[in-house]
């Protein structure tokens, strides 16, 4: 296996895009070696835009409209806001950018055909978890920017680690489109449909169909049919987390008060 096979010309473009993304993140992270100048951050932002363009070009040839255009827009929103989440100096702004990233992810899920999950992401994450994060931030945030928000742990090594991971993942994703070895042939539904063996399931049961009218009904049937035990386990997990968090909060706050109250009536 030669190196040239692993890195075809689109692979080269991909590698350049990943490197540009890593450089842009490093330039924009707080406290890197270049000293957080505003111009450096603008250069980083420009590099990030170039990296996004490279990734979009290497992902597929641009030309499809409609579904693919919508996908490009929402995934661009998700990725840009995710990057802004980790380079924001102020944690409150990081949380707001994270909310926007969640909106982008919900759009991606909608385009990919998971309507219920797209809505549930907004409701559960942006509605509950993010508001909880903001509450804790308001409780615990000192005035102004804390010094630990202006520096990063090893910004160069961290972005290198991220770039290596992203490079490995994208190369292996790109290989998926190639011909797999005979051992790993997994029967795909589309292949089965194309082959004429349509006895697997009716077409409306396809979870990838974004226009199915009974999507949620089928999702619920699957969830409370085949995965009923897992639902019960998830309920127990939620209960344990609830009890545990309340116990930890009240215990940490007033151990002395509780013991004093215990002795008081005697």
């Amino acid at each position, binding site marked *: 296996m030669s190196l040239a096979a692993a890195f075809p010309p689109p692979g080269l473009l991909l590698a350049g895009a990943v490197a540009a993304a890593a450089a842009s993140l490093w330039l924009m992270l707080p406290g890197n070696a270049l000293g957080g100048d505003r111009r450096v951050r603008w250069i980083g932002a420009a590099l990030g835009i170039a990296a996004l363009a490279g990734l979009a070009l290497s992902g597929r040839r641009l030309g499809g409209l409609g579904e693919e255009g919508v996908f490009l827009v929402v995934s661009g929103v998700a*990725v840009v806001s995710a990057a802004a989440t980790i380079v924001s100096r102020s944690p409150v702004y990081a949380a707001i950018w994270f909310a926007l990233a969640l909106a982008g992810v919900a759009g991606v899920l909608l385009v990919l055909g998971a309507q219920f999950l797209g809505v549930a992401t907004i409701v559960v994450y942006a509605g*509950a978890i993010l508001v909880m994060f903001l509450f804790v931030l308001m409780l615990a945030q000192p005035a*102004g*920017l804390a010094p*630990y928000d202006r520096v990063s742990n090893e910004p160069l*090594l961290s972005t290198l680690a991220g770039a290596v*991971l992203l490079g490995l993942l994208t190369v292996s994703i790109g290989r*998926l489109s190639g011909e797999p070895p005979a051992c790993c042939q997994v029967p795909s539904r589309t292949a089965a449909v194309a082959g004429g063996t349509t006895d697997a399931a009716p077409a409306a049961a396809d979870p990838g169909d974004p226009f199915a009218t009974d999507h949620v009904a089928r999702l619920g049937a699957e969830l409370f049919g085949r995965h009923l035990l897992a639902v019960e386990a998830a309920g127990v997990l939620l209960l344990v*987390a609830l009890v545990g968090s309340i116990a930890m909060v009240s215990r940490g706050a007033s151990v002395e008060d509780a013991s004093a109250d215990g002795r008081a009536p005697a």
Partner: protein
Amino acid sequence: MTLLPLVHDGLLVGAILFAIGLVGILARRNLIVMFLCAELMLQGIAVSLVAWSRQYGDWGGQMLVIFVLTVAACEAAIALVIVLQAFARTGRLDAAAWQSLRESNLPRVIDHGLPAPDTVAPRFPRLTPAGVLPEQDEDEVLHREHV
């Protein structure tokens, strides 16, 4: 294997989100931002799972995402309690405030050469005064004072 349209792109977006979350968790020092990055990684996983669910016409991926949501809610509740307790003990949301917990033979992280804070004061939007001042009802003013 022929990937369905958008499945390749969905996997790519999931990988990018996961990598960005990893960079954030490694680099940032604020405990809450680190948890946001962990949630970001979970979002990347969710996008990948839904893409695979679309590829194989199987509900398993979407089921897994539902349980990922459940576990993320539990994790956020527990983690925020721990963050609050850590803040109550040290007064900082700094991960390096707990570096005494690690191996004794590792060197300490010492901040030297902190970058200066941005000297430009943040500019907040200001509403321009518009319209006329409404007439005040005397009874209402008195009533307000009593309230």
